């Protein structure tokens, strides 16, 4: 049995983290959370989370940045928006989860071979470079990066997809790729200024 200290000292917090998150568009109403637990009650994935969505709300508001960004919860969120439409305080929990994911990626604090953030990043890279996602290619890359062994388990599915004409390793491209690059660069530029 491993005995761990569970008390939290004020110094364990990262002051201002909550306020920062709550200043992001879509996340303002986190201030109003009454910790009723409706979000966790409706969340289809809460049964697998280390912190329930409600706890993530409390931890965020109370500046427990390290705990929140390292939690599985944000990666388990499937963006089903069930919590967002049921929250009695009209808090956009799904958007807050997105914001926390962004921060976790930005700070590089997620389990290394954890497929979900890796997928998010591979996905965005592909969109940025080619304008479109080629699902077969994306999934293949994902498995190679995270868990090549598990890819074997997926082989049968892949074969099936191939047989039904739904799997291809060809990269789709749009014509105006230069435009995309410029759009992305402009956003980057603006964000740095802001």
């Amino acid at each position, binding site marked *: 049995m491993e005995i761990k200290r569970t008390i939290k000292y004020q110094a364990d917090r990262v002051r201002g983290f909550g306020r920062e998150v709550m200043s992001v568009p879509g996340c303002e109403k986190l201030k109003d959370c*009454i*910790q*009723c*637990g*409706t*979000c*966790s*009650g*409706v*969340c289809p994935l*809460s*049964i697998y989370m280390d912190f*329930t969505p*409600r*706890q993530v709300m409390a931890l965020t508001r109370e500046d427990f940045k390290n705990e929140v960004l390292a939690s599985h919860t944000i990666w388990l969120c499937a963006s089903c928006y069930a919590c967002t439409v*049921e929250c*009695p*305080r*009209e808090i956009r929990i799904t958007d807050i989860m997105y914001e926390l994911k962004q921060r976790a990626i930005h700070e590089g604090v997620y389990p290394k071979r954890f497929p979900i953030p890796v997928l998010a990043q591979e996905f965005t890279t592909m969109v940025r470079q080619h304008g479109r996602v080629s699902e077969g290619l994306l999934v293949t890359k994902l498995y190679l990066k995270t868990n090549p062994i598990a890819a074997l388990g997926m082989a049968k599915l892949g074969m099936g997809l191939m047989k039904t004409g739904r799997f291809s390793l060809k990269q789709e491209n749009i014509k105006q790729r230069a435009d995309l690059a410029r759009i992305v660069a402009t956003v980057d530029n603006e964000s740095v200024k802001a």
Partner: protein
Amino acid sequence: MAMEKQNQEPRIGFYVCHCGTNIAGMVDCAEVAHHVGTLPNVVMSKDYKYMCSDPGQELIQKDIAAHGLNRVVVASCSPLLHEHTFRGAVEKGGLNPFFFHMVNIREHDSWVHTDRQEATEKAKALAQAAIGRVAHHKALETKRVDINPTTLVVGAGIAGIHTAMTIANAGKQVVLVEREPTIGGHMAKFDKTFPTLDCAACILTPKMSAAGAHENIRLLSYSEVTKVDGFVGNYKVTIKRKPRYIDEEACIGCQDCIPACVFKTPKFADEFNEGLGKRRPVYIPFPQATPQIVAIDPNVCLNFKKGENGDRVVSDKCKKTCVEACGDKDAIDFTQTERFEEIEVGAIVVATGFQTYDATRSPSYGYGRYDNVYTALEIERLVNASGPTGGHVVMRDGKSEPKSVGIIHCVGSRDKKTNAWCSRVCCMYSMKLAHLLKEHTNAEIYNFYIDVRTPGKGYEEFYGKLLEEGVHFIRGRVGEVTDWAMTPEEEGKLVIRVEDTLAGMVRRIPVDMVVLATGLEPQKDAQDVRRLFNMSCGSEGFFLERHPKLAPVNTFSDGIYIAGACQGPKDIPDTVAQAGAAAAEVLALIDKGYVEQEPNTAFILEDECSGCKSCIPLCPYTAILFDEKTDKAWINEALCKGCGTCVGSCPSGSIVQNLFEDQEIFSEIEGVLAYD
């Protein structure tokens, strides 16, 4: 003396109030005082912490004497709050009270602005306007009008009944109007009442029949108010008497007609039992209904069938057996129609109560979708010995008792998407129902709550009692009620999915029955009632009291009071306390015997009136009359409400309104505009 002073040059005293930090926190009061001190006719200008306090009022009186003031302006809160106070102070100082004007720099300024500089400028502009206006004020006299000592009470739930009884016991006449066929309101439906668990019928029905029989109470059931005219002390009220197709004088309440109806078994959803029971077209809502008079429901009675062209066709299936049973009493009258009656009263108490939240608006809880999801009011009827099942708690299949029950709190309360407020009584009534259900069925009971709110005498103790009884309390707002099973024990049950927030995990709890603690909300027609009685509503739609602490049963209309749940969710003890307070206010008003009327009435300058009569049809209070002898119009001061409609309409400009004379208004406007 007043006349003398009026004719003198204006000597104005100006006072700006800090109202603690309410005003001073956003307005630089010293600067306002300094600015006003520089204006013409202003003899002295001061700022003070609390003008409404005794020293504040004395300050005005002393200055009038010391500086020979003949006009006073106070810049502070809303005139609704303290105009009366300051007029009194001015009068005590020896001036006519109408040589005073009040500027609202709190509600209109400091409370609604966030920039101190701008708020200060605005206060200066408003003050300057008042200085300009007050110079033209004239001495006026208030009038006294006698008060009609009869009171109208609208709505006869426990609030209306208690108000009516208190006033009637003091020897005054009351007209009690209730729109349902019986009085009693929601309380009449309950089995027991928290926290003492005394039987609702035992404490309510004696009061109901006493009210019905009281010599000073005229009970008009199945009736509604449709029109209110007049003013405090003298209201003219029109009441619609809905046809119950029974001669109320002739019916003796024997109820022989009910079993005689051609519908051998009751067939139609019974409103009083929340649709859980059935009744016939001729019915009495419940055994102790007051008045003990039956009613006929034209929507289902065969005598009121509509033919294709909309005309009434009497079904030949109906043999009028009810009429036969009634016999000589001859109380049944299918020809009755709506009647309107006009009454005169001096004061009105509105006690129209609440309605419960419509549970189908929260679809995730499955009301209307799953048979065994109930509202709390339905359970009140189900545990009630005089309810549709005789107090036997069975589910909608009519036979099985629940072995487990989940009670979901806050349904349609504390939810911004439906009703944002806390309904105040649901925690307590949920625990009451938990206790009663346990008593009746020995089922496993789960309460799902966000917070347990028990702020009342004996309430926390009641919570303790429930814990002792082994009722489960799970802190979490339920996510959903569903009927699909994950485990064998969930098969065939309603499954509640919730985060047990104190344990920090999500749980699925299968139960046989779900009870939704639906919240309290304003009646559907609250807005119409509000307009009818010229009241205000809060943003949620409950009637607004004049002051939340100091005038909780008064409204912004003099002579109109509110009591009970129409003012906001509350339990029976609070309702009765408020009902008593409203009765006391009414008695204080009636006992005084007269009201003073604001002299802001209009009058016609006879010499200038051309007799065109254009003003006459415009007056909403029919206060303008025409003198055929002089060929001029004149205004009956007793009827004039000072609305000003005629003043603006007179083509020859010969109508003047006290306190709103042209010069007063123009100087006021000039004052604001002069400031920039």
